[in-house]
């Protein structure tokens, strides 16, 4: 096993509650600035699905001192890259800029954290609503198999659970979103005491902290935020849920989702290891059985994967695109034959392979300053523990074969799975 890197960092909390993590890396004269707001689609109210993400778009439309197109324009002109994303547990905003433009990035982020309402108007909302509806069309409605993700949310989580709807939301809810909703969402969730700012790169920590204080220190704390929606969840789905989805697709494809313990738990880490043994890489059991030994499915280096959700539970997902002419039920039966046996035990060779893959995957994830900045924000937001950037990999590597097999037995079982079968439909039947 290679020596694991240790990334230095300092953490601080401003008087207004903003948590700040700064990590030096002087390899290149660049810096990554990354903010996580502790609000995602999980926090949306009924009838407003998709709103956290729509709101993220509005954060790029200007603020008190920043013109409508200037956020992208100023970062681009600085020679930087930027974006924002929304998922169930968070909304993040980030830019990577040449290090001498650090303060430009801080100024832009502070201005929209404290002054978005000065620029928010009906025209911006209407325009970005159309953009987001086209994002949904492009990523879901006009893509073969595009419905799978929404169906996993809908079926693997019970009605009323905050993960039961996906981040993109519904067209009807997007249409219903009003300017008042946007103002209220901002006033409710966007404050320094509900955010984490991470800065990684060619910086001096003391000077950087002083700059953060200068730009963000004048934004008052909100003081309180609504409690997160109730997310109690049975550890298991209870009975198999099965759906056949006729779609305009070239070959059948089956998605299987299992409910599993939440990100941050020992159970989740055990499932990560189990998933790598089962479906991670070309030396995995599923790759050998379903690709190499019998030509049942399209090759895929990551047949199984997990989502890092924290509220009550998350999912382990297997993605099985059939080879042309293969019976979808035969593929599924062969899959279960392999997956359901993981509980019987994991060999030392399998354990070593999985640990090596987890190690290199984790190192790869943290290679770039932007990847590391996002990880610092993630662990601080979700667990108030930036040290997990260094400690998560040792935790994953400490999972034993027995733990992985045990949790495989708890999770990979018929009464805990959603099976989605996408099958080619005649044109007139297609979604």
């Amino acid at each position, binding site marked *: 096993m290679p020596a694991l890197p240790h990334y230095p960092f300092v953490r601080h909390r401003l008087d207004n509650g903003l948590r700040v993590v700064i990590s030096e890396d002087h390899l290149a004269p*660049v810096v990554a600035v990354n903010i996580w707001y502790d609000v995602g689609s999980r926090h949306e109210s009924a009838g407003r699905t998709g709103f956290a993400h729509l709101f993220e778009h509005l954060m790029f439309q200007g603020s008190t001192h920043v013109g409508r197109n200037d956020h992208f324009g100023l970062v681009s002109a600085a020679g930087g890259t930027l974006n924002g994303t929304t998922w169930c547990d968070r909304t993040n905003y980030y830019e990577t800029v040449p290090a001498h433009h650090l303060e430009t990035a801080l100024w832009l982020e502070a201005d929209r954290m404290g002054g978005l309402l000065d620029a928010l108007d009906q025209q911006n909302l209407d325009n970005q609503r159309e953009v987001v509806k086209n994002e949904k069309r492009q990523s879901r409605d006009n893509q*073969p198999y595009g419905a799978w993700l929404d169906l996993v949310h809908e079926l693997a989580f019970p009605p009323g659970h905050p993960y039961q709807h996906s981040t993109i939301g519904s067209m009807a809810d997007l249409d219903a979103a009003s300017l008042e909703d946007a103002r209220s969402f901002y006033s409710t969730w966007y404050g320094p005491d509900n955010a984490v700012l991470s800065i990684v790169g060619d910086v001096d920590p003391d000077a950087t902290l002083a700059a953060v204080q200068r730009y963000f220190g004048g*934004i008052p704390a909100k003081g309180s935020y609504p409690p997160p929606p109730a997310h109690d969840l049975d550890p298991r789905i209870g009975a198999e849920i099965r759906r056949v989805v006729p779609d305009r697709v070239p070959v059948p494809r089956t998605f299987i989702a299992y409910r599993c313990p939440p990100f941050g738990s020992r159970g989740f880490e055990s499932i990560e290891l189990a998933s790598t043994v089962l479906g991670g890489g*070309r030396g995995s059991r599923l790759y050998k059985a379903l690709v190499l030994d019998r030509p049942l499915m399209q090759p895929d280096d990551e047949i199984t994967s997990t989502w890092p959700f924290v509220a009550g539970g998350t999912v382990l997902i297997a993605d099985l695109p059939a080879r042309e002419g293969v019976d979808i039920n035969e593929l599924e039966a062969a899959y279960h034959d392999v997956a359901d046996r993981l509980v019987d035990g994991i060999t030392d060779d399998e354990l070593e392979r999985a640990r090596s893959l987890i190690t290199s995957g984790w190192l790869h994830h943290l290679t770039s300053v932007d990847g590391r900045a996002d990880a610092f924000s993630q662990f601080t937001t979700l667990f108030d523990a930036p040290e997990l950037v260094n400690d998560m990999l040792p935790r994953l590597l400490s999972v034993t074969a027995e733990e992985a097999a045990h949790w495989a037995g708890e999770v990979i079982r018929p009464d805990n799975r959603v099976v989605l079968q996408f099958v080619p439909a005649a044109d007139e039947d297609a979604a």
Partner: protein
Amino acid sequence: MTDVRLIAERPEPAPPRPWHFPPFTRREVAGGRMLVCDIPGRPLAVVSLVIDAGATTEPSGQEGVAELAARALSEGTQRLDAYGFAVASERLGAVWRSNVDWDSLRCGFEVPVDNLVEATGLLADAVRTPGFDDATLTRVRDERVDEIALDQSQPGPRAVSAFVAAVFAEGSRYSRPDGGTAATVGALEPDDVRRFHAQRFGPATATAIVVGDLSDIDVDAVGTALFGGWESSAAPASVPDVTPRENQRRIVVVDRPGSVQSMLYAGHDAPARSTSDYVPMTTMALVLGGMFNSRLNYRLREEKGYSYGAFGSFDCRRHGGTFAARSAVQTEVTAPALVDAVGEIVAMHKDGVRPEELEQARSYRAGVFPISFAGPGPVAAGLGDLVTHGFPDDHFDRLRQQVLDVTVDQVNAAASARLRPDNLVCVVVGDAGKVVPELESTGLGPVEVVADDD
């Protein structure tokens, strides 16, 4: 609630810090060429080979054989079967990557640096003594045929294949996707793959790239493992046929009834990477469609809300290239969106850029160099580009300076010469029944409808 106090004045940037592409050396080891870059303190390293076996080196009628060969390399060697090779590399934490584009075939490992030497042995076996048995090559081919069908079921890739078929002459290599078509790949036999490997892989066509913390690595031993005793008659490739068609502006609709969006492509052939106006031409394309605030994205997304994003760029290869504007737009606005996209191309062609637009594109492009090359993976990719195009050692530093120096006049000359609105091929993948009448009334050009499975 207390008042919000924000800093009103946008900060002035600090003085720029110097940046240069990371220093590297070229070596000859055991009859092979190596580019070696030491990046201290990084836990992951890259060892790879760049081989003059890209898509344009394929025999006519065997389009896709390079991709097939690249995939089959990691499917077992003369010592290990596919599963054995996968397990051996994954136990090292070595992640295999192969990639074929028009100009080169690249393959190798990203691996924790402690295991770099062991991974090099696996790479050498894969490239020099692949298993390539009939059963494996047939399986990999059949998987690839299925993958092409999956790929073509998506609007974007389907638009690309229609676009290149319309822009380039029948028989031109560029008229088919670099990975081949289901028909050309499906017709490949195991012997075709073996022959391609024998003719294209050898010390005369391969260059090794090694990037990472090399303080404890014997680089010559890495080179010897890759090249020592490698006998091959592979020689540099001849110049391919990449002839474009003589297109007058026209519209090709690939009919997909029920589509809720139309995938738009509008473009034409373009000069090779070696063109003397490469920097002005591609900087112009940044203003047109290469940045978030580009004209195309601004018009189609931020002003009209037609699309999630609109882009335009040149793809400059060794022997030629393409220019294309592209966007996925809501079906109902297909015709006005295409009119807008073409309108932006016409306007750029006629009037060029404004000084402030150029300033933003210039500073963006020069600024992202250090971001683009942070870490072993991106540096290895950059070194691969030096090999592919025969660039000198100081290429990236010089390119960055050329970007900083480019003028409005140079950019506008490139816009005038390199955008050709009268020759645009406009591809629309969408519901022909809904979009054709309006497309015809745009006057952009004649409309031809083709079946999806054409």
